């Protein structure tokens, strides 16, 4: 298909999105990520039944925390797609990229740099 998606995105493979816990999302931001996007299988199609639902809850919890501490909840997002749907993956990747460009860099990354 040779589809392109923004180079700003670094892919982290997990066995199932259900494995992605709140702490993993928070740590990414702590380390300076500008955004975290969890992409799971379609709802109802999780091989482990509820992994993608659990992931969505974890993303929502992380969003709440990020909002409370002034980093911005919109920086964490959850998408669902079928593993065979490359074009949609590219579309989602562009979407999260655009959203983050709009929000700007992770504020703690900037402050970390200033302190250093």
């Amino acid at each position: 298909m040779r589809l392109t998606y923004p180079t700003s995105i670094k892919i982290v493979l997990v066995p199932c999105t259900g494995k992605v816990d709140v702490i993993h999302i928070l740590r990414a931001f702590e380390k300076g990520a500008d955004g975290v996007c969890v992409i799971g299988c379609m709802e109802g199609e999780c091989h482990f039944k509820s992994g993608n639902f659990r992931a969505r809850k974890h993303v929502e919890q992380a969003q709440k925390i990020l909002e409370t501490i002034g980093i911005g909840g919109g920086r964490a997002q959850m998408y669902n797609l079928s593993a065979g749907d490359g074009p949609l993956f590219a579309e989602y990747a562009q979407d999260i990229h655009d959203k983050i460009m709009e929000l700007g860099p992770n504020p703690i990354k900037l402050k970390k740099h200033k302190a250093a």
Partner: protein
Amino acid sequence: MIVADKKPVEEIIEFVKDNKKILILGCNECVTVCEAGGKKEVGVLASTLRMYFLNQGKEAKIDEITLERQCDHEYLEEIRDVADEYDAIVSLACGVGVQFMAEKYHSVPIYPGVNTCFLGATEERGLWTERCQACGNCMLGITGGICPVSRCAKRILNGPCGGSSKGKCEINKDLDCAWQLIIDRLKALDRLDDYEKICPIKDWSTDRAGGPRKVVREDVQI
């Protein structure tokens, strides 16, 4: 087990916002099971606070330790050498653990990181319900194993009251009437005769009415 719920992070931030070295102290027992104060929650709170401080342009060192229990001397002793290094400790144990910590370590302020709710059970993941109020004089033997003290809104001992309707309590239609449950259970056990017996006035001196309580067991004391 003791069931606790998470405290809003804003409240915790308010406690520690002026501190520079903070220890988040979890407990491996009840609060781990109810997902409010175990190692996982310690990690989430510590990460949240680290980001909060960075975002405020402040520097703070946030450490994480989770003890086996916080309501036992021997486990609390494990942080003896490090406790004084902190400006504040946020304990994610139940109220017992927080107090035991505060009694043991005087030089550091100890803040509660959870809201301790009740003695209850896990009905399903994410749903905990009350089962016991530690009245000190258990009457489950005559009520078919269902506690009217903790599960009847009015704590009545010869129920149900007039508000019981279709098996639900009058204070909330989603709440089972404890006395309906007791009657159903006694019926199933073919023990409805027990229900006919009037329960005498309960001695509440073993409950909170008698002030703070203690259990002294000379047989196991050394």
